[in-house]
């Protein structure tokens, strides 16, 4: 068995800042993400999937809630011990994220190319011209036939699928060790979904990036993932290889989820 690239132990996120109304939306989550694998995190809306992702990236604002964990290790580095400045260097370079809404994940006032080139300039220290070339290359790798045109487009001039591919290009720009994809295709139609996911997993496979794929779509889990975590009410109720999960779910909730997904067909 390969080594875990991301190791999480007893991660909890409490929203509401310690008041009586505060709730544990993520409650003692532990898992290992192995190098190069695609790990699914499935569960119904509001079960804490997205908050888990935001907590891993350190994106939960202190005013909103608190994040606690016993261990949050990326490779050899213990993220809990690092200062904010060191975390900023890791974000986008070693760990990156693809968001759910491609409509709003790009800044509307800048051309797509500027935002993509920014990642290269910031994390790889490239000059303006080199960053531009790197951006063009990255865009052609996510399947754009005319990367030059995309580079010069404003986000609103691109379709949802195109925008999401730009976001994926940004996330994969530095060949991160871990990519957290939070419902990356929920906002897209089914055909575009398949294209985008295929590109995402291809790129990650080539770069050796491990993906934590957050989704509520069991079809996607079956098709693209190696293992799956099933989450409910902020806890992980089952962890299994995908084949095993579909063949014989151990937890009654997983069985319910599978039955619900099959319900449409049966």
């Amino acid at each position, binding site marked *: 068995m390969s080594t875990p690239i991301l190791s999480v132990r007893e991660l909890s996120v409490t929203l509401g800042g310690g008041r009586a109304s505060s709730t544990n939306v993520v409650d003692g989550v532990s898992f290992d993400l192995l190098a190069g694998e695609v790990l699914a995190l499935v569960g119904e809306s509001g079960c804490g999937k997205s908050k888990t992702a*935001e907590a891993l*990236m350190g*994106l939960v604002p202190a*005013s909103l809630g608190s994040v606690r964990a016993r261990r949050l290790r990326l490779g050899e580095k213990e993220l809990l011990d690092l200062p904010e*400045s060191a*975390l*900023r*260097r*890791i*974000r*986008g*370079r070693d760990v*990156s*994220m693809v*968001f*759910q*809404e491609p409509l*709003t*994940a*790009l*800044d*509307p*006032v*800048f051309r797509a190319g500027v935002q993509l080139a*920014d*990642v290269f300039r*910031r*994390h790889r220290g490239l000059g303006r011209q080199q960053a531009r070339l790197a951006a063009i290359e990255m865009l052609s790798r996510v399947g754009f036939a005319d990367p030059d045109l995309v580079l010069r487009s*404003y986000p*609103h*001039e691109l379709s949802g699928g195109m925008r999401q591919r730009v*976001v994926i290009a*940004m*996330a994969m720009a530095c060949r991160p060790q871990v990519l957290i994809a939070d419902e990356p295709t929920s906002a897209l139609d089914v055909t575009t979904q398949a294209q985008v996911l295929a590109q995402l997993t291809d790129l990650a496979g080539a770069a050796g990036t491990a993906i934590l794929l957050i989704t509520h779509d069991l079809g996607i889990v079956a098709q693209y993932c190696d293992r799956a975590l099933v989450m409910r009410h902020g806890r992980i109720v089952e962890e299994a290889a995908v084949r095993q999960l579909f063949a014989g779910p151990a937890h009654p909730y997983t069985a319910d989820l599978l039955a619900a997904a099959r319900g449409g067909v049966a």
Partner: protein
Amino acid sequence: MPAGLQLWTRLRADPAGVIGLVIVVFFLLLALAGWFGLIGQDWAAAEGGRWEPAGPQFWFGTNVLGQDVFERAVYSVRTAFEIGLVVAVLSTMLGAVLGALAGWHSHSWVDGSVLWLKGVLDSIPFYLFVAAVAYALQGKPWAMHLAMVATFWTGTGRLVRAEVMKIKTREFVLAARAIGLPDTLIVLRHVLPNTAHILLVQASLAFVAAIKTEVILSFLGLGVQHGVSWGLMLAESTQEVLAGHFNNFLAASLMLFALLMGFNLLVDALQDAFDPKQAVAQ
């Protein structure tokens, strides 16, 4: 197409905008000419007789002292631009910075302090405040500028604060954080540029308001101390109009009207041209 050229193409398609641009450029050239000493330098010299009518020697006639009204009106363009630009730039910048600080740290003590300051400034009647500042800084030529900057930023600040509070919850801000940008850079690169439409409108409103306010203050004797402005000319004309002499009154009010009108037309067109979403519609 480069962004500048695109902007120009879109602006050119709007006749009102082109008229505005021509008027503003014309006044800008007058202001620059005044600045470099090419025209209007004899605004203080009394070369003619009292209240001479408009003619080939004195285009707009003369005033009670025999000074050339044309020279004075043209030199006042420089005065107007000076105060308009200084107040528009500084008050908009101050509003953007304080508004962004308050919005980014909303519901914290920073936000509270900015809102408190804004509340205090807004609650003082404007001309009373300017008069107080002008008296407190007696003889300082920038007293009027200071008073205007200190009060004009509040509107911009309030709008920017609200916009920043809206923008900071958008995913691209989260995404910027997820690619490792520090807060200051996120605000400067991704939040403030998204308020550019507000800043543009506010700066142009401040430019127009500053010129109008300067005229009113000078009229009341609180504005321009050393020099000439449309406000001072209008103050002079209060005596003259009753006696049937319209030189000062017509020159100052028509030029003020033309500049403000042209500027409003231009900004209106610019606002449309700047909006990237309008480009798709065309």
